[in-house]
């Protein structure tokens, strides 16, 4: 599951995820009929429109054994909202089944592949933004930290107030821009306080928000999805 943002803006993240998964022995496919999971429309109240996107998604992944998403919030849309969105319709069972086999990237590595060691080296101080939907809707808590801990040379610096939202919130960032701007500034303060060289996370929408503010403030911190760190540091 490459997600619409990943497809358009961050293809490097999808490629990194594909490379890591293949290196771990997973046969990776990209059903090209996928576009968007419908999250933005759903969260904005446009449920009929969200359902149209979601139906196309259901069809695209009908044959996939597992679905791995590089965005925690898109995975959460499928896992958390698809069953309700299709409740009482002919697609209810399909939606429930897709929710059952959809995973966020780090979750898939630790919980399905049971990865406990990684042949990766990445010499940098790294901090992590958990992302609200990944943390609270999917319950992905220590998975990314465990994976970072397996990377040689990587110094993990925990982020203070890590469970606080970065202020993105999808269309919230546009509809309530002053509030979003204030929140992302708080988050950037916390991120800079770590003294890390790299900010990582599991959701490019949050990272795009924090990264966009980091750049506006002239900070030189690099922003990378966890998959990129693993792919770049992969050895062998």
């Amino acid at each position, binding site marked *: 599951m490459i997600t619409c943002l990943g497809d358009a803006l961050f293809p490097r993240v999808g490629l990194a995820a594909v490379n890591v998964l293949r290196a771990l022995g997973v046969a990776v496919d990209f059903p090209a009929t996928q576009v968007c999971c419908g999250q933005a429309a759903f969260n904005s109240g446009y449920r009929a429109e*969200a359902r149209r996107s979601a139906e196309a998604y259901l069809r695209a992944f009908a044959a996939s054994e597992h679905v791995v998403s590089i965005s925690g919030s898109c995975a959460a849309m499928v896992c958390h909202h698809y069953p309700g969105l299709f409740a009482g319709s002919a697609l209810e069972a399909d939606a429930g089944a897709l929710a059952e086999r959809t995973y966020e990237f780090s979750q898939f590595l630790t919980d399905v592949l049971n990865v406990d060691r990684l042949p990766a080296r990445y010499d940098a101080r790294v901090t992590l933004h958990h992302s609200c939907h990944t943390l609270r809707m999917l319950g992905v808590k220590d998975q990314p930290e465990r994976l970072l801990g397996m990377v040689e040379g990587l110094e993990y610096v925990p982020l203070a107030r890590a469970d606080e939202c970065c202020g993105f919130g999808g269309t919230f960032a546009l509809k309530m821009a*002053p*509030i979003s701007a204030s929140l992302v500034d708080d988050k950037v303060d916390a991120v800079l306080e770590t003294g890390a060289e790299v900010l990582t996370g599991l959701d490019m929408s949050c990272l795009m928000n924090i990264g966009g503010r980091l750049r*506006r403030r002239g900070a030189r911190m690099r922003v990378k999805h966890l998959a990129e760190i693993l792919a770049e540091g992969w050895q062998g």
Partner: protein
Amino acid sequence: MTATPAGFDALVALTTGDEDLQRWLHDYQLDAKRWRDAAMAELGAPEAWRDAVAAVRRHTVAHLDEYLVQFVDKVQEAGGEVFLAATATEAREHIAAIVRARGARRVVKAKSMVTAEIGLNPALEEMGVEVVETDLGEYIVQLSGEPPYHITGPALHKRLPEIRALFSEVAGEELPDDVEALAAFARRVLRDRFLTADVGISGVNLGVAATGTVVLVTNEGNGRMSTTLPRTHIAVMGIERLVPDWPNLAPVLTMLTRAGTGERATTYVSAITGPRRSADVDGPDELHVVIVDNGRSALLGTKYQNALTCIRCGCCADTCPVYRTIGGHAYQSVYSGPIGAVITPLLDGLDGHAHLPFASTLCGACDAACPARVPLTELLLELRSDVAARESATSSWGLGFRGFAALSERPRLWGGALAAAGAAWPAVARLPLQWLRLLAPWTGSRELPAVAPRSFRRIWAGGRGGRRGRGC
């Protein structure tokens, strides 16, 4: 959703522009989290306790008609008078009639959100009655002429210098810059008011249907004074504020105080069953329980029913990043924070409040903390779908999402659009960014990410059916 109302924008700007207040609210939330976490850890198995509270509240609300009838019967059996007010106006008029009939000139009040909801104070003041809020926080905002800032902390935004100035004005002299001295001053003033008030008005934290008991939790003792010293006590409550019986009261009560203020129990927990009996040493001669509907019963049996299971601890605001950024007054409602964004439009209608359900990043922090498991995010999403349904078919968001849905169904068209956008981006990015009005809210504070020259799907297809991607 159309643009946010100007009043909201102005209040947001006021709070986001006040660095001291921003720090104050953020520090408060971090403190509140520490207190709450410690109180929950001490209790052990907080998730099981939350399940228990949710079960009690959902059951009560689902059978509200039966429990209301039982509660009313029991209050009357205990010698209390009951009035069911369908609207805020009915409630105000009934309470005003009681106060008038007693010839009351002074009313003391213990903290109550529902009396603020129905606009009771101005109505009584219009009759020439002096109304004195006796909860310290409520007293402060009464002096400053402001609505409550937070469900349990009405003067949360007030810092010492402001409180000192307000109290000094009452004292007619400059009071010392000292918390103890200021509290002692308030105590002195309020003590006199308690002793001379004709009527005491309180809210109701919980009503026990089995015995007709009104339960109040307070920390300052003002609740007990307001309800026992004056000869008449009027307790005002929303129709949903019930639990079936005492065993079911226990989990709700303990989670109310632990979630709200991080306390095992508040200093005072008062359980009032009827007015003073002949053997009692104190208590009012008469007890009136005013039960207010004001839009609540219309939610029963709808997708919004669980909004009524809230126990008004205020911890959703304590966890909400939007609340700490915009402050309580920006909600322009008695109820602030996530629950305010839910029940304000539900009780008062979407008109004028349609932006509130969008004042959330949907981060779920409130859901994770709510002791009654009120599904706040789910309720916000339901409200958003109601708002979207009201928007005109040609609203820009509606057109945008319909267009995007159409693209979602046509992956080749989407791929073509990405290719075009990727090719055009270098030129577009050189334009002044203001050209795209839709993105101005983003670019005002953040750099825009670039559209990739080659989309993932194009790179993938270029690798012929999924050989290792070559990078972009």
